[in-house]
């Protein structure tokens, strides 16, 4: 019952993540990578990893350092470790991107940059796993939503291992036959473990808790939630472990992916039932912008399932896989991420600034830190951009895609301006902004007024 304090470096993760999102949108709008380049071209790989690692993974790590403790009501194992972890992840990402540019012939330096990048990323994610793993271990027995996070953490481990194998084979560090097999056939597993296991399954776990918390809805732990967990976890286990085995024994990867896919769709359906229940059973009738925009992202998640089924029926999934992955990354994961950031940044900033003086003096409400009617325009524009860009990919219209991504870029910049204004308390009435005893918050880290807890 020691409670949860502010995660010191979460804001740095959010800032680095948003910078990566802007960079990726600039590159896409400029016509870099797919669809101008091939789907497996080094340029596309640069783009994909800026989004998956730079934006989505850093966002997820920053959020987990704050919200895993909230889920389990236990403090984070180490509040210092996230900073070196971030440095490791960023250095790894930079080396990996340079390694892809080596493949493209843009960088001619001789070092095995892909392998170096993969090792640094592996180290960074190991530090994430160590810190969150120790935090979770100390809190056993664990509530159900955190089980999703544990599977997500195992999935990032698997994703990283596949990535390291690819990097070692591609940079010529190893030519061991099984590893070469994994590198040539394992790409679907790498993508499913990363986008499906690490990012989606973790986001599902966190969303169960955050949506219930922000909408005053009951915590779910019934059969549908357990069903979603078991179906999703077994889909991932089958695809990752079964898939790797199938590759090494020259079995059929297609069968494994199909069964895994069906289990995954079942998990999505059960999760969908739960989320509809959460929105309907909420006590807070008028919900805030973040919950409304999260609903749009959740709708996009459901639409992904529909899109996959339709494309399968018409035998067009493989041809349009880029559009599906784009929609998962930007319609679902980024949509959910941006909408939750809008709440999290305001809430954490409010707690950091005004927690110490609550009751002693007049303080603003959390909602006084944001101006929703201004932010909603940028969110609407963002989702319009995502839908148009996905349609442009499906219809093979590269110029329209670039225009749509430019719209997303403008909208993202608009949302970031709102986040910075919140962090700077710029929208709080001047009379309430900085009462005695309140410090202006820093953009990149959080003051933590409690002495550091020694890990035991």
């Amino acid at each position, binding site marked *: 019952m020691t409670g949860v304090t502010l995660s010191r470096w979460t804001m740095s993760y959010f800032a680095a993540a948003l910078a990566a999102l802007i960079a990726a949108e600039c590159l896409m709008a400029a016509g870099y990578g797919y669809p101008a380049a091939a789907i497996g071209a080094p340029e596309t790989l640069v783009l994909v990893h800026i989004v998956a690692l730079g934006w989505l993974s850093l966002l997820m790590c920053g959020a987990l350092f704050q919200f895993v403790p909230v889920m389990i009501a236990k403090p984070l194992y180490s509040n210092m470790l996230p900073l070196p972890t971030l440095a490791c992840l960023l250095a790894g990402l930079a080396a990996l991107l340079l390694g892809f540019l080596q493949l493209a012939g843009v960088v001619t330096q001789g070092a095995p940059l892909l392998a170096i990048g993969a090792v640094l990323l592996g180290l960074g994610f190991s530090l994430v796993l160590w810190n969150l793993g120790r935090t979770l271990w100390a809190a056993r027995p664990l509530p159900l939503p955190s089980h999703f996070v544990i599977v997500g953490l195992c999935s990032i481990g698997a994703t990283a291992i596949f990535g390291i194998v690819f990097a070692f084979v591609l940079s010529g560090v190893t030519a061991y036959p099984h590893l070469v097999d994994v590198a040539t056939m394992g790409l679907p597993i790498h993508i499913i473990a990363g986008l499906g296991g690490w990012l989606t399954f973790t986001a599902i776990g966190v969303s169960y808790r955050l949506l219930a918390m922000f909408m005053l809805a009951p915590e779910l732990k019934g059969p549908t939630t357990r069903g979603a967990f078991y179906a999703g976890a077994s889909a991932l286990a089958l695809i990752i472990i079964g898939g790797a085995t199938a590759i090494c024994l020259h079995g059929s990867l297609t069968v494994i992916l199909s069964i895994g896919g069906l289990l995954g769709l079942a998990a999505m359906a059960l999760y969908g039932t739960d989320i509809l229940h959460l929105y309907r059973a909420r006590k807070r009738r008028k919900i805030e912008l973040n919950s409304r925009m999260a609903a749009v992202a959740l709708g996009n998640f459901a639409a992904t399932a529909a899109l996959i089924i339709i494309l399968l029926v018409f035998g067009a999934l493989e041809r349009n896989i880029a559009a599906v992955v784009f929609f998962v990354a930007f319609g679902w994961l980024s949509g959910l991420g941006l909408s939750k950031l809008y709440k999290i940044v305001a809430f954490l900033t409010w707690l950091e600034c005004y*927690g110490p003086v609550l009751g002693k003096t007049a303080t603003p409400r959390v909602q006084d830190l944001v101006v929703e009617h201004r932010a909603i325009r940028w969110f609407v524009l963002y989702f319009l951009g995502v839908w148009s860009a996905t349609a442009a990919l499906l219809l093979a219209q590269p110029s329209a895609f670039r225009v749509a991504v430019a719209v997303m870029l403008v909208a993202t910049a608009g949302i970031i301006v709102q986040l910075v204004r919140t962090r700077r308390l710029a929208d709080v009435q001047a009379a309430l902004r900085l009462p005695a005893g309140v410090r202006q918050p820093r953009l990149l880290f959080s003051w933590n007024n409690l002495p550091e807890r020694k890990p035991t």
Partner: protein
Amino acid sequence: MTTFVELDVRPILRAGGEPFEQILNTVNALKPGEGLRLLATFKPTPLLHVLGSKGFTHEAKEIGGGDWEVQFSPSGAPATNAANPAKPATATADDSVWPEPVQHLDNRDLDPPEPMVRIMAATESLAPGEVLSAFLCREPIFLFPELAKRGHSWRGGFESDGTTYKVLVRVNPTKGASA
């Protein structure tokens, strides 16, 4: 081999009573090497922390019908109450008998973080050593560090309905003395 003294507080809990004092009296009466086997109608999370700070390890298991059996064994390690002087008064360092609450708040239907705002405001209006109680709809994890910073102590846990969280906050007895 640890021998266990059994204490069944389920009748007290079902009658709406507060068995905390009786549990502590039983624990204080234990002979060296003896443990406590406690039967309760819910998992007594706050008690696990309190007895943990008195050097007991625990093993909790659900025994059906929503009831819990917890075995507290002496760990042989000394109590660690005074190990963290930076946090002088948290739930783990205070097992004395508290006065009856002078104020009660029902914060179950308030939007977060309004429950915390009201509790912090109420602690400012109470006299040193006075106790306030509040009903909440979840464990107030962000509240505890703020209470600790001001030297207030707290005890809390879910009621037997499993959804209402009741927290007692005792205002720092030395409040204002140092200001």
